[in-house]
């Protein structure tokens, strides 16, 4: 290489190296601040507002700073599996349990402290004790009475795969919430019937981006019926009811897969850089104060631990007549596979 050329190139190289060094130093140092060392890293698939409230109250009580990495259940679950032991995560919180099982089966969870498990009733946590339920939510049908009468509503979630429901219901198959509902169908009906049901759904359902958009579409009269989780509706009713004003809810009950109660999970990673603080955080979330934030705040999800009761507007959790399912048996990857096969993903 001629020396002129080398000189021409050297200056930019030096500049690049300097800049890149600057960038990465800026990132790892405490100055710039998104992840100062010593902060507890929570991979958060729960609603960001809720976890933020938990984190702020926890920091106030313990002085431990918390940073959130937000994402979807299966996105963060798969991310933890791919990161393996290199992960910087301390705690994993989800909205539904299939992603928890995924991480559990990869052997990446540390056992949850006995004292923490003791405040959570057995039906809301896996027998393994590798993670625990932190909240619960119920599947519901939201419908528009202007388009469909209560008498015409389906009696089972499974009915919605029948030809007469073509173009008459909507859901958000791309999201972990609905994928959890599908996992209940797989668990209660078996793989083959679930596959058939998903094929029917691919024919019949209008696909929306998430539960809120689904509910809004029902409210606007785009489709008569939507399958969502209960708290989106109660939350909107509690606010201005912009997206749910004319709609009503229908609970399947009767241990139908459509009455599925999904358990949100929390766990501590085996390789957590801050294992003790992580256990403290999880204990805080299922403790009295954490569950009260859940039960009394804006969330409208069901508390599951420390005997904290849900908002009075909500029907009691034990009266929903949900199918009895061990949360740790729900198979996330199988659901993704079946839904991909049916063309829903």
């Amino acid at each position, binding site marked *: *290489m001629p020396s*002129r050329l080398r*000189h*021409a*190139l*050297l*200056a*930019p*190289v030096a*500049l*690049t190296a300097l*800049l*890149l060094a600057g*960038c*990465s130093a*800026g*990132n790892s140092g405490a100055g*710039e*601040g*998104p*992840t100062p060392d010593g*902060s507890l*890293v929570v991979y958060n698939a729960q609603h*960001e507002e809720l976890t933020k409230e938990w984190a702020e109250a926890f920091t106030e009580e313990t002085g431990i700073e918390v*940073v*959130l*990495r*937000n*994402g*979807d259940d*299966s*996105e*963060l*679950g*798969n*991310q933890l*599996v*791919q*990161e393996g032991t*290199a992960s*910087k995560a301390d705690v994993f919180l989800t909205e539904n349990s299939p992603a928890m099982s995924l991480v559990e089966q990869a052997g990446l969870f540390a056992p949850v402290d006995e004292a923490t498990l003791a405040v959570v009733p057995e039906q809301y946590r896996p027998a393994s004790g590798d993670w625990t339920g932190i909240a619960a939510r119920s599947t519901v049908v939201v419908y528009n009475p202007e388009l469909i009468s209560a008498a015409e509503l389906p009696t089972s979630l499974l009915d919605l795969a029948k030809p007469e429901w073509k173009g008459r219901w909507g859901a958000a198959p*791309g*999201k*972990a919430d609905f*994928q959890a509902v599908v996992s209940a169908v797989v668990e209660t009906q078996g793989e083959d019937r679930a596959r058939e049901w998903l094929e029917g759904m691919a024919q019949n359902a209008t*696909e*929306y*981006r*998430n539960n*809120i*958009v689904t509910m*809004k579409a029902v409210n*606007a009269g*785009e489709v008569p019926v939507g399958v969502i989780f209960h708290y989106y509706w109660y939350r909107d009713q509690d606010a201005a009811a912009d*997206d749910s004003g004319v709609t009503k809810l229908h609970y399947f009950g009767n241990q139908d897969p459509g009455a599925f109660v999904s358990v949100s999970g929390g766990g501590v990673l085996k390789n957590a850089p801050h294992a003790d603080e992580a256990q403290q955080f999880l204990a805080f979330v299922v403790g009295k104060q954490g569950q009260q934030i859940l039960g009394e705040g804006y969330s409208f999800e069901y508390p599951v631990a420390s005997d904290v009761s849900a908002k009075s507007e909500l029907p009691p959790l034990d009266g929903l007549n949900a199918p009895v399912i061990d949360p740790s048996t729900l198979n996330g990857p199988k659901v*993704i596979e079946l839904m*991909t096969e049916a*063309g*829903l*993903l």
Partner: protein
Amino acid sequence: MLVAVLALGALVPIAYVVQAAVAMGWGELATLVLRPKVGELLINTVLLVMIGVPASAVLGVGGAWLVERTALPCRRAIAVALAAPLAIPAFVSSYGWASAVPSISGLWGGLLVAVTAYFPLVYLPALAAIRGLDPALEESARSLGMGSWAVFVRVVLPQLRLAILGGGLIVALHLLAEYGAFAFLRFDTFTTAIVVAYQATFAGPNAAALGLVLLLLCLALLTADSLARGHARYARVGGGSPHPPARLPLGRLAPLAVFGTGCLIAASTVVPLASVVRWLFRADTADIGGLASATAQTLVLSLAAAACAIAVALPFAWLSVRYPGRLSRLLEGAAYLASSLPAIIVALALVATTLAFAPTLYQTAFTVIMAYVVIFLPRALVPLRAGLAQVPESLEEAARSLGVAPLAARLRVTVPLLLPAVCAGGALVALGAANELTATLLLAPTGTRTVATSFWSAASSLDYPTAAPYAIVLVLLSCPAVALMFAHATGRSLR
């Protein structure tokens, strides 16, 4: 050497997709690619490009011609207004439309929003090209008996061919890469499907398989473009200085032309902005802290991206201006190719590659900045090349003959002369990075929130009022870049 390494770095996304496809094996790849859902996505994406690009070309060229060559009333204001949509990121425009008219969705909704957001990418080059035309050619054609329409089709359009093709290609690449705008409108393309697959499986096989199809579509577009360019040359001898063109009187068509451009401006700018402002009045003022911190983080990331992009672009530009040849063209081509790839593929590749080979870089600002550099490199490269070409090497030689050391001569003579180009290129990169959504969503370090991702998280849960202040900041951040581009297209200086 260095440039080759950088060029290879730019090709990481392609390497990732190909490697993932090979690792999957034919069987798994076939079951993931050859299924009805992919066919559906293919139809959507192809229709989007096939309708969206010609529509943008018609609007862009028509607008430029009306503004430059006819006696359109208020044409100066209209000339600026037709470029203004570039200042509204397509996903913000889509949010404006979707919240104003909730029933908008699907292919036609996607086309409405995307075409009104992207037609200025044809309009600006067409405007520049029309301004550069010598009216003498058109007058000769006219004197030979052609009517106005025939002159436009047979004399003006052929001379605009390269501008239209170039702009059309950029529109097409944007349509392939757009995520946010289509997600709001329930319109599925490969990019939106890859994001959904990513949310369901992280960087799993389904995302990579869809990425492979998207990559092939992108390569097909680039090939089609280079074939369409052909080798035709339009040359003329002794141009001299052209006199200003006569403007075509519109007569009774004037109200129609004003109405048409008015509708276009309303759809592309007024509706989205009015919608954002309407939500802004309902916004919660308590969130100002969040907005400030997101803006600060965005500024840090995008300025770092600008600095790094300039640093990477300099050797490329230097090589291609001072040592032109087949090799330098090849390396530059690699940089352009990488930046034509949809951001989602670049992001997926960086997630997978850093996780596998450089876990310490994974989830750091470094990786986000690297993605920005790959995506926006041409924005720095083009002005730097032009700037460097205007700095005569002899100035440096003169300085050295006066006894200045080589490196010092470069720093004291060439670098100051390059400064305007560095600033322009850096500004364009920074503004692009500040508005980037797709790659930022996947790559942002834990705890980092940019204006675009904050907007996205609020708007996705239909919290329109909370999203509005972020939308306004995104628009304000885009304005300077659009002013730069408009000034460049019309040959005016901003100073």
